[in-house]
């Protein structure tokens, strides 16, 4: 597959982002961190491409981005309610994230020299667990079709990407010099990432409208 095709697939994140920007004023506040997440994903992709063209290296931007992404995902689960009820867990996870990132990137010098695989493994695992927990909560509380529920779709996306990140990073940690297999795994990742971006676009479409906005249209029209 050509490099341009790979890049185009990476930028599929623009689809949910544009849809999100169009609906931004109408959706519930608890979904806004997800739009921020999409915005940072797009920005990171853009900066990464520019960085590769200028310096042939995107390690610094990538390592900084994953810390921001992990933080936004934690905040998203906070606004959805689970981590709001368990603030101690939020504080614990945030601390563990920060400590792991600092140790790996600053102390071990990975920031400019490589990719912080241990941090990715940690935050992917946590995100997958939080997503499974959210899906379980939805199963008991939501009566309609789950595939039309934005939270469910976002969590499915997180689980797919999280599990695949664990496989990729696990492979890189076990056999870092096998570039041929690494390239193939990355190639599959590009497709999975594009698929998840489409899932995110559907999730943005199904994001519930703010109650006050929805009701004001009918009651004060």
């Amino acid at each position, binding site marked *: 597959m050509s490099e341009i095709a790979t890049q185009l697939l990476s930028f599929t994140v623009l689809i949910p982002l544009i849809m999100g920007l169009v609906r931004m004023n109408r959706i519930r506040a608890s979904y806004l961190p997800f739009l921020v997440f999409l915005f940072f994903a797009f920005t990171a992709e853009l900066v990464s491409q520019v960085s590769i063209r200028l310096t042939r290296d995107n390690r610094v931007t990538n390592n900084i981005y994953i810390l921001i992404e992990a933080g936004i995902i934690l905040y998203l689960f906070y606004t959805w309610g689970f981590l709001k009820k368990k603030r101690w867990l939020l504080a614990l996870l945030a601390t563990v994230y920060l400590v792991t990132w600092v140790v790996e990137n600053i102390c071990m010098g990975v920031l400019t020299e490589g990719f912080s695989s241990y941090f990715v493994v940690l935050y992917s695992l946590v995100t997958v667990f939080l997503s499974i927990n959210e899906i379980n909560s939805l*199963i008991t509380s939501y009566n309609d079709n*789950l595939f039309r529920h934005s939270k469910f779709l976002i969590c499915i996306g997180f689980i797919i990407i999280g599990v695949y990140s664990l496989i990729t990073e696990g492979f890189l940690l076990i056999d870092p010099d096998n570039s041929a297999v690494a390239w*193939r795994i990355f190639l*599959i990742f590009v497709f999975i990432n594009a698929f998840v971006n489409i899932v995110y676009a559907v999730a943005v479409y199904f994001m519930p409208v703010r*109650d*006050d906005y*929805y009701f004001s249209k*009918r*009651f004060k029209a």
Partner: protein
Amino acid sequence: MEERIFYTTIFLCSLLAVIITFFITSIIRYHRRYIRLQRERITAEIRLLENERKRIATDLHDSLGPLLSTVKLNISSVDVPDPRDKAVIVKSGKYIDDIVRSMRQISHNLLPNTLERKGLQDAIREFYQLLGQEERMELHVYAVSPIHPKPERDIHIFRIAQEIIHNTLKHAGATRLEIGFSEDEKELLVLAEDNGTGFDVEKSRRNSLGLGLKSLDIRTDILHGTIAIHSSPGKGTRYYIRIPLG
């Protein structure tokens, strides 16, 4: 060799993904069936409760009411010469009036006739009038579009409105409560807003020992609707209720 290992890994991962997906789908299906059965049970219990209330209200209104009126008529027609006996008869008549009034109140609380005769809005207004709290708080009930009566649904919405009025009177310290209705071909919207002190919704849901908020949730759930309560200390309370039609 390397290629074979790669494809074997991909195949095994895919197989594992299929098994996990089937496992999760199966759990979701059975869990939802369990939830549906639970909801059906709660709905049946509440329907039974409402039917029983209706039966008691009808018995009180149709059997006991006329009987008491006859008793009062009979007592009033008794002519006694002794003024002390006359006073006893007048007093008894007043007691019978009190009993009839209380009985009507109980009968109305159990099931307001107005709900079936005049509809939701009048039933809520009448309920509030009977509470006698108009000086403490003003209640404004309105509809932005015609509400088509549906007895099965309306009784639940009436109970929800009752609960909201009780909550507002008891906790909000509000001087005005507005309950609005809007119906289209898709759904019925109920918007209730007060100018009271407001409260921390999450905290109340967690710590509340009463059945108030739970009752709102259950009644809305029976109607396959959703309820959202927006409130914070000092900013009043808004109840957003959406009930799908059909």
